[in-house]
């Protein structure tokens, strides 16, 4: 099945959505305040629609061939992605639009069974987008951004890529970014005992690549509860997207660190540490974040001396709720170019 639609969005859908008032802000001709609601035919992007059992086979004129998909992705990256850093931008809408439209691109790829370097590149870009979001949007409410759904989509992208890498390798075609994405897969499964065995199955140039090896270093730090090394490596790792994926382990490492320090630091009931040291040790943003953590774990603080006491009797091993996630400058400082460049 080969697509023939030459626009980013099939004509029928453009008119249909305009009529049903289902356009995204990014697709509109003029702002809604001016009471005109119409689609900008140059800016509309095909949305994702779930396949239902009673839906007919997609028609060729509704599917976009690879060059059009590439043009669509280029448009999204060049014109929409960087808006996340524009002041006043609604991040929930921004995320939903990009996620949905990228999902639409992925669907067109699967429906046409496109398996070549060009389609691999498109799915890779989708995955990078989700990785960036997992960190950048971590402070948003569940309604605006759901980490779980973002993770599911990321996992789906990586799954698709794994199949494509395999199918192409059978034809002796190798993709230039495979090591990068295998390393992301490792970082998503640091707690999973099976990950080492999976890495063994990769071909040697991927297994020995810099990206995969640096991701594997983190497996050991988690396994040996070496919280110091974890944050040290996170700090020295220069890859922005790899660090975005590390953020999900911050709380786990911090919690373990607290459990260990409460037991090990003494004299018993008198062992203490400066909040400032905790920032470096556990990757906090500032003394305030460190202090909030101590509070959630029931550890008494001295506000004047800015120290925390490792009091075993008041320590809460697993608080019911962890303090809200904060955007991490440790991570964001690694992004040395625009977001669109990263993707």
């Amino acid at each position, binding site marked *: 099945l080969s697509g023939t639609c030459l626009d980013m969005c099939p004509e029928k859908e453009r008119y249909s959505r305009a009529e049903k008032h289902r356009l995204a802000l990014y697709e509109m001709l003029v702002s809604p305040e001016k009471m005109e609601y119409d689609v900008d035919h140059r800016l509309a992007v095909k949305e994702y629609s779930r396949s239902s059992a009673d839906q007919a086979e997609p028609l060729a004129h509704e599917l976009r061939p690879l060059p059009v998909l590439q043009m669509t992705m280029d448009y999204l990256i060049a014109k929409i992605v960087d808006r996340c850093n524009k002041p006043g931008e609604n991040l929930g809408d921004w995320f939903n639009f990009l996620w949905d439209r990228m999902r639409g691109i992925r669907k067109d790829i699967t429906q046409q069974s496109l398996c070549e370097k060009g389609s691999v590149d498109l799915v890779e870009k989708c995955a990078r987008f989700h990785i960036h979001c997992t960190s950048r949007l971590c402070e948003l409410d569940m309604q605006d951004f759901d980490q779980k759904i973002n993770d599911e989509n990321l996992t789906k992208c990586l799954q698709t890529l794994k199949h494509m890498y*395999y199918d192409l390798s059978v034809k002796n075609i190798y993709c230039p970014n495979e090591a990068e994405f295998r390393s992301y897969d490792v970082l998503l499964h640091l707690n999973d005992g099976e990950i080492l065995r999976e890495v*063994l199955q990769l071909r040697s140039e991927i297994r020995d690549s810099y990206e995969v090896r640096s991701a594997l270093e983190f497996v050991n730090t988690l396994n040996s509860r070496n919280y110091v090394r974890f944050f040290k490596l996170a700090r020295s790792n220069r890859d922005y997207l790899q660090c975005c994926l590390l953020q999900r382990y911050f709380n786990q490492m911090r919690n373990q660190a607290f459990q260990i320090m409460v037991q090990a630091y*003494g004299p018993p009931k008198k062992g203490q540490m400066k909040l400032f040291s905790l920032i470096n040790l556990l990757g906090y943003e500032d003394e305030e974040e460190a202090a909030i953590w101590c509070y959630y774990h029931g550890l008494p603080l001295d506000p004047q001396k800015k120290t925390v006491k490792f009091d075993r009797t008041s320590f809460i091993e697993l608080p019911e709720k962890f303090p809200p996630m904060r955007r991490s400058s440790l991570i964001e400082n690694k992004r040395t170019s625009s977001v669109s460049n990263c993707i």
Partner: protein
Amino acid sequence: MANLNLTQYLREIQSSWQSRSGTEVSELLSFNHPHVMSSKLILEGFEKSVERIVEAPFDEIVVLHLRCLSYINQQKYLEAYTEQSALVQAFTKLFQTQKEDNWALFIMYVISLDLRMFAIKADKELAKKGADKPGQTLEKAAECLMGLFRVCAADNRSSDEDTKRWGMLYLVNQLLKIYFRINKLHLCKALIRAIDASQFKDQFSLSQQVTYRYYVGRKAIFESDFKSAEKYLTYAFERCHKNCRANKRLILIYLIPVKMLLGHLPTPQLLRKYDLLQFSEVVQAVREGNLRRLNNALLQHDAFFIRCGVYLILEKLKVTTYRNLFKKVTLLMKTHQIPIEAYLEALKFMGVEDIDLDETQCIIANLIFENKIKGYISNSHNKLVISKQNAFPSLAAIV
């Protein structure tokens, strides 16, 4: 046997069935038996012959077996699995109707084993076609076997001689093998509990007990319950027949790391006898407290260790190595308040690169947390203050 024709086969299986000869019927339904080599069994319209010669409801099972055989001959494993699965389910129903009777257990063993084998082959087939979920057929096989298990486990009104509960451990072992392969260890818990509660716990056959202890031991490793792991795996190793070298070696691959974590190092003779020299360098390194040597040893055979699934446990030996090293340092310092720098220097001397005071403190803190050092870290003085008595308890004594 390989030239058996259909009528002969059917007459034989029917007569064995009628005389309740469990072993004979099981042979004629097993894919390990030479009758499967015969080319004269799958004839056109064989179902009718079966119906004619074999009594109901057993005839359904024979038909399914022959259908399965024809798919195996065509190497269509997914289809073969489907037939075998239907066979097991038909057998389950039949088995349940046999009150106070367990002669058919022999059949159950054979068809369960074949079910698992075909499921593995079917999954391989699916993987080649690019299936999404690895192990999906094995998962279905497990559900099928659970049905059989429930029939056996529920048979608690019959006498000890006739009860179907004797079949429980065999099925549990099949299920454990599946759950380990598809990495769903949490499903083992209920089965282990059932066996532990069984009155026949210690009366099942020795080979079944060895297999059982092997898997339970491995599960204990995953849960970091090394004391239990040692108990189970030692039993398995000692009771495993000395001629089953491959199995003994397999058990050792897991027993050795566990014992090392508990402070007992294997002798070079043992390693040589069972062709496990991959562990020698590791053993030496731990004995010396030599971290660089340990790292190299793990790297040298990492593929082997990872494939066996013991790499991460061996990584934990780093802790044992640190402990051995720090104990030496502490004894040298002859005081109860040792500056952390002393340990840092020792680590650097042993070739650990890129290490600083913070990380040294972290390693020591972990040792204290695991009860391997009795003492505390004084942050203000940057010292480790150890207990005056038994600051480095023997590893075997620590729970």
